[in-house]
């Protein structure tokens, strides 16, 4: 016998289901008066530093149909590449930018539109800089465990070319699934759950 490690196991995940809005975006689904606002609905204010952008995302199933009942949370650094988090030890992030957003998809079109700022670069563990990116977490009916991925920016070709995560992708033809094309201020990020264009998901 040896001494037990006494580690606990992470609670098992269960699907967010079709009614995730009730809990996480109640105002969006018509349950008003309980919370003043839906958390994470507004990411920027007048004083937020950085370039204003819109991230227009969809989550698309294996038949090519956009999910109309998904929920996405995003997490990103501020314009200087600092996270607004107690675990950020490199400096103080922009106090006018939490860096976290949460939206439900439009119930008719499946579109998400995050109004945010373009993040700065953040170092990898070994000190190399990662390319600017936004971390995505996707839940929905039919998704048993929330999916993690990242969105990179099409106009950051040099930074993308030296990004430690993008570099480690063996199948280079899949890298474009993580890069959102830019049109004006809008980046479009289509997340494919399955098929030829399946987005790279991360075990992080």
């Amino acid at each position, binding site marked *: 016998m040896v001494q037990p490690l006494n580690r606990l196991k992470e609670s098992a*995940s269960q699907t967010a289901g079709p009614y995730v809005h*009730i809990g996480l975006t*109640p105002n969006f689904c018509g349950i008003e008066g309980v919370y003043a606002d839906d958390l994470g609905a507004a990411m920027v204010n007048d004083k937020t530093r950085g370039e204003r952008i819109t991230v227009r995302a969809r989550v698309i199933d*294996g*038949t090519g149909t956009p999910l109309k009942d998904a929920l996405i949370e995003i997490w990103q650094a501020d314009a200087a590449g600092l996270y607004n988090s107690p675990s950020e030890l490199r400096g103080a992030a922009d106090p006018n930018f939490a860096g976290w957003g949460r939206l439900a998809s439009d119930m008719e079109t499946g579109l998400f539109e995050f109004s945010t700022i373009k993040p700065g670069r953040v170092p990898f563990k070994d000190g190399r800089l990662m390319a600017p990116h936004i971390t995505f977490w996707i839940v929905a009916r*039919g998704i048993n465990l929330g999916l993690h991925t990242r969105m990179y920016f099409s106009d950051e070709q040099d930074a993308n070319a030296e990004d430690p995560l993008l570099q480690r992708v063996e199948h280079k033809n899949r890298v474009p699934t993580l890069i959102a094309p830019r049109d004006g201020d809008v980046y479009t990020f289509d997340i494919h759950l399955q098929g030829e264009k399946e*987005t790279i998901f991360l075990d992080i």
Partner: protein
Amino acid sequence: MSNERPETGAFFQRDRQWQPPAYTPGYKTSVVRSPQKALISLDNTLSEITGPVFGHSMLGALDADLIHNFAKAGESAIGPRIIVHGRVLDERGKGVAGALVEVWQANAGGRYRHKKESYLAPLDPNFGGCGRVITDADGSYCFRTIQPGPYPWPNGVNDWRPAHIHFSVFGHGFAQRLITQMYFEGDPLIWRCPIVATIPDRAAVEGLVAALDMQATIPMDARAYKFDIVLRGRRSTLFENRLEGN
């Protein structure tokens, strides 16, 4: 919390044999919504280790009282009154302070307040179905609600969800993000549910079943259920600068 060293360790690798796989054909919706290619593994970077902070100040007085937070003045939701309490812990067994716990559920008849919901059980005009709380310094939380009813759902022709409360938990790092469901001790529907059955390990299912907790009841008012939630633990960063490549 302020006297503690900041947490900068990467999270323990997620045990994907314990967590439900993406593709679970018994739960039909997963079939076209499950990634089929291997996930790319990446040790946590700052993007996963960090996460936003939610302060107690954002909470309203009735956020943790689902019996009253949608009810008209002087009225309350219909159903068996319960307290749900427990702790948010990490895999090391430490309480997670300041975790945001958001819950949603059907009413006592098993009906959700949602435009896509068509079950014939009636809405309760005094029940909205959402609540939230932030954990104390030791990770404990508590809220008051009514016990939700089981409900049928379109999967097989006669599948019923056991009574359950949906939980969304936000710990300290974005990689800890978790959504799960709490079930009630003794419910025979638990072991018949295709969504529960997405979890491969029986012990992992039992970890989602809250126990009736008579010590925490309020006599003549509410029964209590105890439900602990475990988030991913963090590696210590104590020696990270010295042990290269350990």
